[in-house]
Structures are given as C-alpha cells and as structure tokens.
C-alpha cells in the first residue's frame, strides 16, 4: 500500500499542469479554450479527495465483506449438520468466548488511541498503543487456539462433521486475518521506530486501523451468528 503515485510529487511544474494561460496565449489553437472550470484542482490532489491508499483499503475491505459473506453463509447452511450430537449446545463456552471477544473489541479502542496519537504526531504514544493493540489481538488469538484445543479434545475435529468443517473454516479465516493484522501492527511499530514509513505516518497508522476495525466488526457478526443465535 505504499506505492508512490506519480501525482503526489510536489515539484511538478505547476504552470504546466494547471493550464494557466501563458504569455504565448495567441498560439492556442482554435477550439481549445484555456479551461476556466478547473479552478481548485491541484495537481497532487486526487479527484475524490481520498488518498489513493485509503480508497484502495476501503475497496479491499468491501471485497472482504463478500469473502466473509460466503464463509458465513456456508456455516449457516451447515450449522445443524452435526455428528454424534457435538454441536454448539454441547461445546460453546459463552462466558469464555465473550471474554476474548471483549479483548478484541478493546483492541479497537487502543487502535483508536494509536491513530489519535499519530495525528498528534506523538510517536511514542503511537508505538505504545500499537503494541498494546497487537498484544490484545494476540490474546484473542491465544483464546481462539485454546478454544479450538478444547473442542478438539471433546471430539470435534476439522473433518468430524459439516458443522465442524464450516465452523473451523470460518473462524480460522478470521483468525488468519487477526494474525495478519498483528504482523502488520508489529511491522508498523518497527518501521516507525526506525523511521522507515513511506509517506504520511498518521495515514499509514489510520489505514492499518481501518483493517483492524474491519476484522473486529467481522468478529462481532461471527460472534453473534455463530455463538449467540441459538441453533
């Protein structure tokens, strides 16, 4: 997401790009008017006002909705197709999962703290809150691994039933997303520390934040549909 765009280089000759009438204005061929309706366009501004990277992140998250939509639909289709009476009623430990969900939701709060610190150019605060966010994410993942282990001990393997396959696939995909998010957060901390961020630091933090919030929101949907709604 750090590609340079050819337009945001500040030292492009402004007179050449805004088409301002020049002294040799008589040479303008007929049929070419000198363009009065582009006032307010700055060359390095994007046409929508959103930066390229932020727009790209929004689009990516939009398509991710369809990915999780497909996985959630598959789970909803198969949630009652269990083997040996091993289903949600026997397995779910709602208080435990609620606690890990709470941890994940709190990580969104710390992410907001980090974005806010980045906007204030408080580098130390940014790194601190990013680290806390990554830790909370790690805690959530640890909870998920623990939960999977418990289910496995109780006899729910990946291939036990359609219910188990679709459950592990859905929550596994979400877990991988959290894992990728943690790697991005920690990389971001390291890159901030070594001053290797390309472009606007605050915006980079904000973008990782967008991804992180998305992963949290998806978990709210999964937690509701998978754990809370009775089968």
């Amino acid at each position, binding site marked *: 997401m750090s590609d340079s*765009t050819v337009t945001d*280089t500040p030292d*492009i000759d402004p007179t050449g790009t805004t088409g301002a009438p020049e002294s040799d204005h008589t040479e303008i061929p007929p049929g070419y008017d000198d363009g009065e309706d582009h006032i307010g366009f700055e060359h390095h501004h*994007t046409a929508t006002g959103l930066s390229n990277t932020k727009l790209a992140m929004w689009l990516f998250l939009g398509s991710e*909705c*369809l990915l999780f939509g497909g996985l959630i639909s598959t789970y909803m289709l198969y949630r009652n197709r269990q083997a040996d009476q091993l289903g949600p009623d026997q397995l779910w430990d709602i208080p435990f999962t609620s606690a890990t969900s709470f941890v994940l939701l709190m990580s969104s709060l710390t992410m907001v703290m980090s974005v806010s610190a980045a906007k204030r150019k408080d580098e130390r605060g940014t790194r601190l809150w990013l680290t806390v966010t990554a830790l909370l994410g790690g805690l959530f993942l640890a909870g998920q691994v623990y939960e999977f282990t418990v289910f496995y001990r109780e006899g729910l393997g990946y291939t036990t039933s359609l219910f188990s396959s679709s459950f592990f696939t859905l929550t596994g995909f979400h877990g991988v997303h959290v894992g990728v998010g943690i790697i991005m957060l920690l990389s971001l901390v390291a890159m901030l520390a070594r001053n290797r961020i390309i472009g606007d630091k605050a915006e980079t933090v904000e973008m990782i934040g967008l991804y992180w919030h998305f992963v949290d929101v998806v978990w709210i949907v999964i937690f509701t549909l998978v754990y809370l709604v009775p089968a």
Partner: protein
Amino acid sequence: MAIIERPTDTPAIAGAAAPAVTPSTSYGAFRRPVETTGWKSWVFTVDHKKIGIMYGVAAMVFFFVGGFEALLIRAQLAQADGTILSAEKYNQMFTMHATTMVFLFAMPMASAFANYMMPLQIGARDVAFPRLNALSLWLFIFGGIFINTSWILGGAADGGWFMYAPNSSVPFSPTNGVDFWVLGILITGVASQVGAINLIVTALNMRAPGMKLMRMPIFTWMALVVQFLLLFAIPVITVALFLLMFQRNFGATFFSVEDGADPLLWQHLFWLFGHPEVYILVLPAFGVISEVLPTFSRKPLFGYPFVVFSGAAIGFVGFGVWAHHMFAAGLGPVSVAVFSVATMAIAVPTGVKIINWTMTMWGGKLWFSTAMLFAVGLIIQFTIGGLSGVTHAVAPSDTQQTDTYYIVAHFHYVLFGGAVLGLFSGIYYWWPKVFGKMLNETWGRWNFWFMIIGMNLTFGPMHILGLQGQPRRMYIWTENRAGEGFFDLAFWNLVSSIGAFVLGIGAFLFVINVWVSRKNPPAPADPWDARSLEWITTSPPREYNFARIPTVHTLDEFFHRKYEDVGEGDAHDYRKVATGEEVIAFEEQHGDHHIHLPSPSYWPIVLAFAFPVLAYGVIYSTLLLVAGAAIAVLALFGFALEPPTADESEYDPPPPDGDQPSKELAVSV
C-alpha cells in the same frame, strides 16, 4: 524513482548542481533495476503501457492454446464415434478450453486494454499503484502457466469450467488436475482482485483536471464497471475454491452428499461469481466498440449517459440473476420465477446499448475500417446470442435446452460474437496508438471475414444440434442418433467442425497481419480522426504519457480541440480548425519540465513467483509450501520497504549544457 528530464531552455534546470550518480543499496538487499532496454526493462517494469502490452501478448498466446484445444474438440466431433481423443482427454480438453478462454484470454485481454488505455483516457501518467499493477500481470502469467503444467503432470482438470462439486471431488476426479485448476484460478483471482482495486482507484482518483465522471471516455467507464464486478465477484469464487481445496486436500466434506452436504452449495457460490463473470467478459468489449463506432461514424456516441448507466445497470442486475444457470437443479417455483423475470430484465439495459450503437451509426458517414467491421460484427452476432439468451430466461424452455448444444451455441455467440469480436476491434483500432504503426487493412479484412464466417459456421449449426438433443460434454455421438434431412446430426456436426477450422485460419490471419505489418511506416498521430483523450499524445506514448496533463473541458475532448462548432442556434456544424498533429504539438510545446515516474522494481515478480511455489507445495510437498511462504514474506517486506522517492543523488544529473535531453528513463535506484 526515475526522473525524466525533458529538453528545456529553462536555465534553472541546466544550472543545477550535478550530483554524482550512485546507485543506492541503502533500502534493500538489491539495487533497483535500472535497465531501459532489453528483457529486464520489461520484466521489472511498472509502466502501465508495457504491462498492458505484456498482458495482451500473454493473452494472445493463451488464445491460441485455447483455440487449439477447441480444434481438437471439433475434430473429435466431426464424425460419429470420433477416435482422436479418449473420453478422459476429451473431458480435460473442454474444461481447459473454457478455462483458458475465460480466465487466460478474455479477462487478461480486457485487462490489457484497461491497463494501457485507462490512464491515457483519463489523462494520468500511470495507474495508482504501478508495482501492484506489475504484480497483477505476473500473477496472471504464473497462474496461467501453473494451470497448464497440469497437462504434463498427470492430466488437466476434467470437471468443466464450472467444476461442479461433488463431481470434482476426489472419488470422481482422482488426478491432480482439479487441484491445479483450483489453485491456478485462486492465483489468477488474486491478480484480478489486485488489478480491480488498482484500476478503480486510478479511474476515481487520478483523473486529469476537468475530467468529471460524466466526461470519462466510455471504454474507461465500462472498464470501471467491470472492475467493480471483479471486486465483488472474485471473493465469492475464492470461498468456493477454498472449500473445494479443503475438501480435496484436507478431508473436509463440504460437498459430499453422502455426509449430508448440500450439492447446490457449490452451484450457488460458483454462479454468484459466474454470472457477473459473463459481464466481466463482455462489458470491456462493449466499451471498445462504443469508442470505435462513433469514431468511424463521424458522430458522437448516441446517448452517452444511457450507455454509461445501462452499463452500470448491467453490473448491478448481473449479481441478481445467477440462479438462471440452475433452473434444471430443482430450486422450486418461486426461485425459478424470480430469477426468470430478473433474467428477462437484464435484457433491457443490453437492448438499450444495441439501440445506442445502431443510432450512433444512423446517418453517420460510415468508414468501414477493420476495427469498424469487427464492431458492427459484434452488434449483429451479439444480438443473435442475446435473443437465444432470452429463450433461456423462459424457464420451461430452458429446461429443454439445459446441457445441450443449444447452450453452447448461445454462449459462443455472446462470448465470441460479443467479447472476442469487440477485443479484436480494439486491437485494430488502438494498434497504431500502441505500436505507432498501422495494421494492414487488407489482411485485416481477410482476418475479419474468415472469423465471422467461421464463427457462424461453427456455432450456428449448434442451435440445430442442441434443439435436436445432442448433449454437451459428450465425447462422441453415434450414427443411430443422427436425424434425417435438415436435422441430420452428421451433416451439422461436420459443418460445425469445418467452421471451426475456418475460424482457426481467421485467427491465424491476425498473426500473419502482425508479421506483414511489422515494417509499416510510422502511423500518423491521429489516423482515425479519433475523439478521446488517449490520442492527445504521441503514438506510441512515451513513458510519461502526456507532455503535460491535459485539461478537459468536455466529453470527446480531442474532437472538440480539432473541430469548432460554427452552427447557429441549435444547429451544430463542426468545422475542422486544427489537425490532431497540431493539437499534440501544442501540448508538447507546453510540456512539464520535471516528470517523476515510479521506477522499476524486482518485488512484484518475486512476490508473484511465490504463489505457484505455494500452489505446488499444496499439491506435492510441505517443504515447497514453506519455501513459497518464505519467498512471499520476504517479497512482501521488500515490497513494503522499498522507497518510492529516492535521494537526490540517485537521480540522473541534468545535462551540463542544458539543451541535450538526458536518457529518458534515466537512473532509477
């Protein structure tokens, strides 16, 4: 980062201190590639034009691969009880023919045009994310090669391009073919996904001053709609492919009916992707001919907003008609009725487009160049395919036609008659833009007529064969099923096979044309008296596309710079007041002095290379999986840490005497 210095008489440039050129390794393990010629300048490029050309060349190669597979199929079916292919090979052949044509020819060819033309048409110097663009290209190429290596590694996929599960699960398809297919389509899917995000951002964010959305050239509009379709359709097929992969490789039972699975799950997921995919294939071609028809009719596009909005409407409704592929699956009367009506509804925006094209030609001064011939061919052939499509929308009639050659006839009329003819129209139209030379028009006409006659001979008889009940995907047909007289299966199968070879010759004539035209003199800057922004620069465009970013005042900007309206009141009377060359020369005169372009990079191709390694790992060994993952992680960090802006010292020094341009793509570090 490369900096391009253009000749200038501004002393400020000439007088600047010339720093030493020291390629820097400070940001990574490798020096950035700096070559401006030779294979390295292509392999590591991030220039959207070179990437577009490579997309086109690779797609063309796959077009001939897929065409060869089609010829084998038709040779097998030319006579009763054909012996050229075994049943297994025949299954692999039709599966790979469709897969190759859809995923490895039509989609990348459309990407070639979108990559090359979209930045030019909106007045940008490159796409929003040049390195991601290169990543898309190499993912597509590696994915395509990966799928095709299955031919020599135990046989290709054999489940049809829709790969219906459970028919594609291990008991029914025990070779690795389906695994290759699944993983290959995942890889090309990543390519499409990355490309879609990139091109949407480009079209929305990087428009030149004054290029409002409703001034965007129509091809860019259609390409934009297609990218949105890809953005939302690819994740759905990704889910289906992952489920199938987990079923085949890790013992899950998502599609095993004996374990209680729903056999319709795959069909729903696949067609929720598969139907938008149809519009992904055909809308770029619609965009191309919506540029070609006005140019060669000497009239503006009739009802530009209608063409734009009907394209967008096709995009929206395209997500709501997928179950019409499943009328025979037993969905129940309500679903069938709803999807039947929705399918009829989608014919409306398509019909709107046909009317717009016809009205564009109506009363115009028609110039039947090869590009125009292909465009007019599209209108006629696509309409035939559209009409047979409406017969499928009627569910009872569809139940008769399902899995017969009638369906094959229909989708070849819309895909060959729609997508392929449109793409060839674009090739002839933009060839002088891309390569600075014209294609030979005489050979072009032979190319066109062979293809159009060939396609009608091939696919026309399939209507009759299908209504007579010849099933699709059967590797032989037998004499005792052949009908009499007009309904003689033997006769029409033979006609269809002969037609396929005529079509093959027609496609080959294109290659001959490219060869014959290779030494043509430079094309004029504006050979077709064109209308849109991509022509306001030299042909072929230089790395930086435009000497200066053009300011846009109207739809058909280039036309309005060349022609002045001297009509009184409401009457329009356009007089030519400037040639294309003059308009371009004026832009060149006022060019920017500094143009910064992103410099080439190793990381896109390295990252893309990790994907087939991972995919072979899934099939063959965990060791390869680990290796692929290691390459991917390394490449991702290399990608992320690579700076877009280099130090002053990494730029090419300005020429000492101030009036000699330095090498155009100078030092990039």
